[in-house]
């Protein structure tokens, strides 16, 4: 059988989601942000809620998320996305509201905002992309940087003596009663990607049923900041990030 007999519209089983705009993403080759954007677009399309979703993009490499996914967006000041999410959700309680934030954005400058949004149990979804580094600004240490990990600001490797320990944000937030669902996912393999998509669907369902805050951490790579090839970065992530940030549900009180 010739491949031209297979490549026909009626045989198509996977293609670009109609919610992903034509603009080419500016992310570095292999960057987890691209795959996570895709999961979000596909989920919103499958749930058929395009008109009802409002995303809040961060300061960080994902700042231009509004150029890539065809939904309504607001852009927040650095770390303040959860506060905007609270405000938008109160004005539009029937919309699906999510933030999309890096670890510098959420776990460093925005630590206060995220804790209070989660503590109020605001009925929003938080997408937390933890690549253990400030990607956008050239690879500085983040609160999530692993012990011993070399970054632009920890050339000899992060030391807990001067800089503390990698911050386990998802576990910290999971103890708050307002958080109904807290999970850690990744997008490094097809199986992980499919599981992560189910987590996003579940998070949006939490909003529909007005359950409280849903929080999804994506353990991610930043091959440029880590100075590796994209496939090396995925392997390094599994070997070094997963022991500290293990994938799986941290809390699930959704009841579904």
């Amino acid at each position, binding site marked *: 059988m010739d*491949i031209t007999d297979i490549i026909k519209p009626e*045989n198509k*089983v996977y293609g670009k989601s109609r919610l*992903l705009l034509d603009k080419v993403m500016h*992310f570095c080759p292999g960057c987890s*942000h691209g795959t996570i954007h895709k999961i979000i677009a596909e989920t919103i399309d499958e749930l058929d809620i395009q008109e009802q979703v409002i995303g809040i993009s961060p300061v960080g490499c994902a700042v231009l998320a509004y150029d890539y996914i065809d939904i309504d967006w607001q852009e927040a000041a650095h770390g303040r996305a959860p506060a905007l999410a609270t405000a938008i959700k109160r004005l539009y309680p029937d919309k699906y509201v999510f933030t999309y934030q890096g670890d510098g954005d959420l776990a460093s400058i925005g630590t206060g905002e995220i804790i209070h949004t989660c503590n109020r149990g605001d009925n929003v979804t938080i997408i937390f992309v933890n690549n253990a580094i400030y990607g956008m600004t050239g690879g500085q240490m983040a609160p999530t940087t692993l012990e011993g990990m070399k970054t632009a600001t920890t050339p000899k490797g992060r030391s807990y003596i001067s800089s503390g320990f990698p911050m386990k944000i998802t576990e910290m937030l999971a103890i708050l009663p307002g958080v109904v669902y807290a999970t850690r996912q990744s997008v490094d*393999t*097809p199986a992980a990607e499919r599981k992560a998509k189910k987590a996003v669907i579940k998070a949006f369902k939490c909003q529909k049923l007005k359950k409280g805050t849903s929080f999804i951490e994506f353990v991610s790579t930043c091959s440029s900041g880590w100075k590796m090839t*994209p496939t090396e970065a*995925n392997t390094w992530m599994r070997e070094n990030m997963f022991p500290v940030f293990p994938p799986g549900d941290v809390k699930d009180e959704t009841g579904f």
Partner: protein
Amino acid sequence: MAVRGAIEVETELCKGCGVCVVSCPSETIAMSKQVNGKGYNYMYMAHPEKCTGCVNCAVVCPDTVITVYRVKI
């Protein structure tokens, strides 16, 4: 029932990251020696006859430049 698959790659938009290649269970795809207009080695079907249309390569592609087709034979 056997299946055959095939993929289409938007070669000019491929960033050459290679995460698709390591996700293909049938070793259908590889990185080209040539580069595209952006200077990236792009992914192509090195062994088209091996593709089962499992969509693995396409779901992990961060830039969503792969379309997958499958037929039952």
